[in-house]
């Protein structure tokens, strides 16, 4: 399989308000495969949002390279193709909707790249259907809930023809219902339309749904693996200022106190089953 996004020795240095250089990303080597659902977790300031903005050429590497669908982000000629291929969804649902009508907003991206009218209408309809917002096509965005607004933003990237969507903490400002909506929409797109998803989050329960979890700290990839691998490493996560899922933490503490439990427990159900096996046998 071919990588959709590939970074080699990616470094990002910026000058802060006190004129000091800050290394936000410090040598990232990463491959994201087509059709993959990757979650990126990390504490505040770990560089995860900076990394996301490199995937869409909103930021350019200070050193090293980023390739999106085989195109180098440093080459200016590739800019618009890269931004079509990789859609971005941002944290604040209010600040990324441009138009005063839902369908006009979804049409904003394809309008920018000059898609002919007939095809455009079809794209907008398909995109709104894919996120289950077709009934709201003529609504005003400010009357929608946070989850609905974020789904409109996702539809905007789909209408642009993106086969890869990078979501930068899309649920950070949503209520639990909205969070569920977004996660299930993203999973559905990933499974049914094989859209590559890079999902940046600080909710561990959301990261558990991914195929692969990348843990960031101090501008580096600290470790990565399947959710089971990553969330079993309770102590390492805590050192990075992250909290493992409750079941994993609980299992870890029980094991430390001498209860015989198998490794790799991360969900409540698994913990319940393991405990039942130990105590009821």
């Amino acid at each position, binding site marked *: 399989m071919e990588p959709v996004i590939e970074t080699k020795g990616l470094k990002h240095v910026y000058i802060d308000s006190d004129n000091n250089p800050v290394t936000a990303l410090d040598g990232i080597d990463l491959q994201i495969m087509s059709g993959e659902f990757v979650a990126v977790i990390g504490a505040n300031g770990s560089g995860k949002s900076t990394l996301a903005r490199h995937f869409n050429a909103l930021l350019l590497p200070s050193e090293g390279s980023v390739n999106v669908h085989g195109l180098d982000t440093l080459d200016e000629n590739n800019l618009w193709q890269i931004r079509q291929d990789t859609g971005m969804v941002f944290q604040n649902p209010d600040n990324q909707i*441009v138009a005063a009508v839902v369908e*006009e907003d979804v049409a904003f991206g394809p309008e*920018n790249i*000059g898609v002919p009218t007939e095809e*455009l209408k079809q794209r907008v309809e398909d995109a709104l259907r894919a996120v289950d917002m077709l009934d709201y096509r003529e609504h005003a965005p400010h009357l929608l809930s946070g989850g609905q607004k974020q789904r409109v933003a996702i539809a905007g990237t789909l209408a642009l023809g993106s086969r890869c969507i990078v979501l930068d903490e899309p649920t950070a400002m949503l209520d639990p219902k909205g969070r569920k909506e977004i996660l299930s929409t993203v999973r559905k797109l990933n499974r049914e339309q094989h859209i590559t998803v890079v999902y940046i989050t600080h909710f561990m329960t959301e990261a558990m749904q991914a195929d692969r979890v990348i843990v960031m700290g101090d501008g580096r990839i600290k470790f990565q693996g399947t959710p089971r691998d990553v969330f079993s490493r309770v102590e390492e996560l805590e050192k990075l200022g992250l909290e493992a899922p409750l079941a994993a933490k609980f299992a870890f503490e029980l094991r430390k106190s001498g209860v015989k439990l198998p490794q790799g427990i991360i969900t409540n159900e698994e913990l319940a089953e393991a405990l039942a096996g130990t105590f009821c046998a």
Partner: protein
Amino acid sequence: MLDITLGQYYPGNSFIHRLDPRTKILTTLILIVAVFLANSAIGYAALCAMVLFIIAISGLPFMLVLKSVKPLLFIIVLTLVLHAVMGQGEHVLYQWKFIKVTEEGLQLGVQMAMRLILLLMISSILTFTTSPIVLTDGIEALLRPFRVIGVPAHELAMMMTIALRFIPTLMEETDRIIKAQTARGADFSGGNLLARAKNMLPILVPLFISAFRRADDLAIAMEARCYRGGEGRTRMHQLAYRSGDGLAFVFAFAMIGLLAFLRWGPKFI
């Protein structure tokens, strides 16, 4: 003006509502010129009949359209009174010391007042029957030919669209800030004009900071969605003239023709 026109749209599906926004803007301009041509009682009568006719087919409540005159009522009355009192003329109707009301002055005053009332009613029919979003599309399309002489048609339309999109959001925000400042003991009521203006500061400063932050976010989001100005852009909803639009133009030109005839043509009365 912006906040007056913003909430004005009166949804409907009448002949007037369905006209292309370009038609409505252009015919409104033509009719405004027609109003300025009127100089006789018959001319004004024709214009009044026309406004009533348009209101009737647009399905707008008459009182709603009449209310649009209210913001300028003071100026209209002032115009009428000043013309009546200061006007020159032979036929004095009433005199008290140096103030005299002449027939000519009164006539001119009534004409001016009628003109203002008609202008307000005609232009408000445009904003009552056209949603701001469609109106923006129309303005953009009409300004497009002037791009060659440097009129930023697309940019203006984009700014209006974003303004329409963010005004409700910023209103919500203002509400939140007022509540937050009230909770901290701020008092927004009372005091003279200066004190009240000063009271607005704790609302305006956070509102501005947040608006700038939003603008920054929005710019990044727009860039991420391939925005690069109006060049090479297509539109999902393309404006198209239909037969009704032709009819509206014929009507508008007939109106202006009639008034030009009444003004410059042979006199019957």
